[in-house]
């Protein structure tokens, strides 16, 4: 490990590649993470309905009704994504960047997830899923836009699943409005998810909805080869065959795009929350 990183207690819990592109500690503020929204023309009504309400992120100090505030993993505030209290509701937050070299990139974060503590019961399967995705496009003379998605399916209906998934296909593109200049496609639907060849991973839930344990996640992508290389969550390391990703022809105004998004989806008519203590993106550039 790079000794400069090891000497900094905030960074020594990460394993960054040679250059840190961004390091977002949410004690410092919202740091470029905004609500995801669909494309529209003339009216918000022209948006694909799935994109109409993806909820604004917020800064949370993890205050619980029974024990007060826990704060974040390191400090007071974490980025919080909160779905609506409606089965299948998604909250999605995105950070939009561009890259300057098609090398390897690596995302690391510390996260936790919980249902809203609105009932005095275990609530283990109330969060359906959370995930992270990249939305990428080649730079000069682009051939492809491509989108690695990694999802932890916690539960589906009443069944616990506790497995990681990837996605190889998006939905059909739709024309938005009447100018012919705007299109949209929804890529976070429930279809086309495939299990990663990795074992069941039961993440510590810790018995009641007001206790959070922080987890580590690392995701690796190769921009040059357009490969979704693998990931690590706590002590589960996946370094097998490259994972499937969505791939579509390059689009007119997205060159060098390097977007990162997180989302959480509820499994019941109850809010689901994803908290991020900190997010670090590093790379070979």
């Amino acid at each position, binding site marked *: 490990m790079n000794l400069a990183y090891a000497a900094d207690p905030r960074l020594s819990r990460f394993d960054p590649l040679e250059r840190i592109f961004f390091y977002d500690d949410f004690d410092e*503020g*919202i740091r470029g993470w905004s*609500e995801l929204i669909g494309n529209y023309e003339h009216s*918000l*009504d022209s948006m694909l309905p799935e994109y*109409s*309400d993806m*909820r*604004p*992120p*917020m*800064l*949370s*100090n993890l*205050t*619980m*009704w029974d024990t007060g505030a826990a704060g974040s993993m390191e400090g*007071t*505030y974490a980025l*919080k994504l*909160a779905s*609506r209290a409606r089965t299948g509701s998604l909250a999605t937050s995105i950070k939009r960047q561009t890259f300057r070299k098609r090398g390897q990139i690596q995302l690391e974060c510390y996260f936790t997830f919980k249902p*809203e*503590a*609105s009932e005095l019961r275990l609530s283990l399967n109330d969060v359906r899923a959370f995930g992270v995705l990249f939305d990428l496009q080649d730079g000069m003379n682009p051939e492809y836009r491509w989108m690695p998605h990694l999802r932890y399916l916690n539960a589906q209906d009443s069944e616990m699943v506790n497995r990681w998934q990837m996605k190889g296909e998006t939905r059909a593109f739709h024309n938005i409005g009447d100018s012919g200049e705007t299109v949209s496609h929804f890529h976070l639907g429930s279809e086309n998810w495939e299990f990663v060849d990795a074992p069941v991973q039961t993440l510590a839930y810790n018995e009641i909805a007001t206790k959070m344990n922080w987890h580590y996640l690392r995701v690796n992508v190769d921009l040059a080869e357009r490969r979704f290389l693998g990931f690590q969550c706590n002590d589960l390391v996946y370094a097998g065959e490259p994972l499937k990703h969505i791939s579509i022809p390059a689009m007119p105004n997205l060159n060098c795009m390097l977007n990162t998004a997180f989302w959480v989806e509820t499994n019941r008519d109850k*809010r689901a929350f994803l908290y991020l203590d900190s997010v670090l993106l590093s790379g070979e550039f």
Partner: protein
Amino acid sequence: MALRRSYTAVVERNALWQGDFATEPYEAAWASEAIFFVRALDVTPTTLPYGTVVSGVAQVQISADGIHWVNEGSSFNLPIEQNAVAFCRVKHFGGWLRLRGAMYEDTSITVLVSLALKE
């Protein structure tokens, strides 16, 4: 000089309110002041018997836990014209904020609600 941090969350966008309504809980413990802006993307108001044109009334609510809510004491009338904006300032609100309220009979409003927060 350290600049004060600020953030605006769009807590409702293109949402139709009829009857009772409430915005989603929003955590803002870091902020010391807030303004709720409500812009009418579309509105169908009504005229009361004594001639006043109204649509609805919103109250600011606060919460210790995001689950149990209580009126903060501030309330305001919602817009009665398309693209008109109503607002309400709030200070000293603790950890959570939301709007709750009711529309008058036979009225509706499609809103964009922005919550402007400042350290």
